[in-house]
């Protein structure tokens, strides 16, 4: 099952990237995520591994994932190593001074047959809701950060003028 949601954030891709590339921030904006911890010594970048769990229904599903694509300010993608099969992607594109951000998640359990198909379909609504709320929370955080940066710049400009 493939689920995708997108949103426009009034901030440059660099600010959005700062949030999505930093694993310690995930618990602050990802809805339904109960765990996003670094496995191993590499915190971020290609090959970084995380243990993630997302609450769907009565279970926290996820497992060990590995970053397989890491193009700053554009794409961050991961694949599952253990746990349910999943592929995820942050896709960030600059659109007239703002950022178009898409979060995609493809998940399933190979070999689970008809029951798997039914469960994936029923879970999609919950997963889509988590993705939508995650993007809204990311937007709030990044735009707040953008305002803070702009205010700091204005303050320092005023200070310099005096």
């Amino acid at each position, binding site marked *: 099952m493939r689920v995708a949601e997108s949103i426009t954030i009034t901030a440059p891709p660099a600010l959005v990237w700062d949030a999505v590339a930093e694993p310690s921030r995930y618990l602050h904006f990802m809805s339904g995520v109960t765990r996003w911890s670094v496995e191993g010594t590499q915190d971020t970048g290609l090959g970084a591994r995380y243990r993630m*769990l997302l609450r*769907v*229904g*009565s*279970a*926290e*599903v*996820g*497992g*060990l994932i590995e970053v397989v694509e890491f193009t700053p300010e554009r794409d961050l993608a991961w694949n599952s190593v*253990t*746990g*349910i099969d999943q592929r995820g992607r942050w896709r960030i594109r600059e659109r007239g001074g703002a950022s178009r951000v898409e979060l995609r998640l493809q998940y399933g*359990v*190979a*070999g*689970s*047959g008809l*029951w*798997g198909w*039914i*469960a*994936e379909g*029923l*879970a999609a609504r919950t997963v889509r809701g988590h993705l939508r709320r995650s993007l809204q929370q990311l937007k709030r955080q990044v735009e707040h950060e953008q305002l803070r940066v702009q205010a700091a710049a204005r303050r320092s400009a005023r200070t310099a003028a005096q």
Partner: protein
Amino acid sequence: MTTATTNGHGSHQTARERLRAPAEDEAGERSGSMLGSVLGAVKGLVTSRIPPADLDERDPDYIRESLPRLWLLSSLYFRGDVRGLGNVPEDGGVLLVGNHSGGNLTPDTIVFTLAFSTYFGVERAFHQLAHNLVLSFPGLSYLRKYGTVAASPENARTALEAGAAVLVYPGGDYEVHRPSWHRHRVDFGGRKGFIRLALDQDVPIVPVVAVGGQETALFLSRGESLAQVLGLDRLFRLKVLPVSLALPWGLNVGDMLGHIPLPAKITVEALPPIHLREEFGPDPDVDEVYDHVVRLMQDTLDALAAERWLPVLG
């Protein structure tokens, strides 16, 4: 000894040994009566069906492929809510001690097995101890693929030595068939073997408290007297012959064919681990530990029960 670890979740090296399931006590004295002969024959049949406890029969791929089925059952039918899995140590042997509910179908085990398998991954060795009759019952052999083995100290020891998480229900058949009006009562029937096991293996105990399972049917009586008269304890280690009102049978005696459980909301909570020697000294008193564990679980069960508005609906 070299050990092969799987995803950091312990070793299977020592699990390779096949262990015989514990032999049943010899059938009672042959009285020569017709009933005695018949029961003896049935016992022989059942005993021969108890599979040897091979921990390697656990099949992570099978569990993984069945997760969607379990998820549907757990999330939609029982509206499962499992809390506190972060309290279970990340790796190494651990004894999960649960209160048992729901008759022979034990929906709390289904809900917890799904939650444990998705939280820690199917790669983590996880075994459940079950009554001999469960494993010998026709059509239930698939349980061995989930890691279910016959409840015996030998099997539990082997699994813990292999670094597995072992789920044990000390109350067993006695607790699982308690009357519905005792549904919010932890009742291990004084069985303390799990404490000796945890001490021998030096593993922590994680109490796992579940509520809702005893609302999946109307359990009327354990039928202990009936079981005693028929000699079921001597023959099959069965202390009860439960009587309940359950779908689709109506009056259900024995629950041997199972029943259709009512879709009661199941809530499960794993409590922080108890390291016995750290908390009770180098030589803990078994009775004291037992009282502590039961009291802790009863307090949690009371709290979970207080969250419920109505039976079945939760």
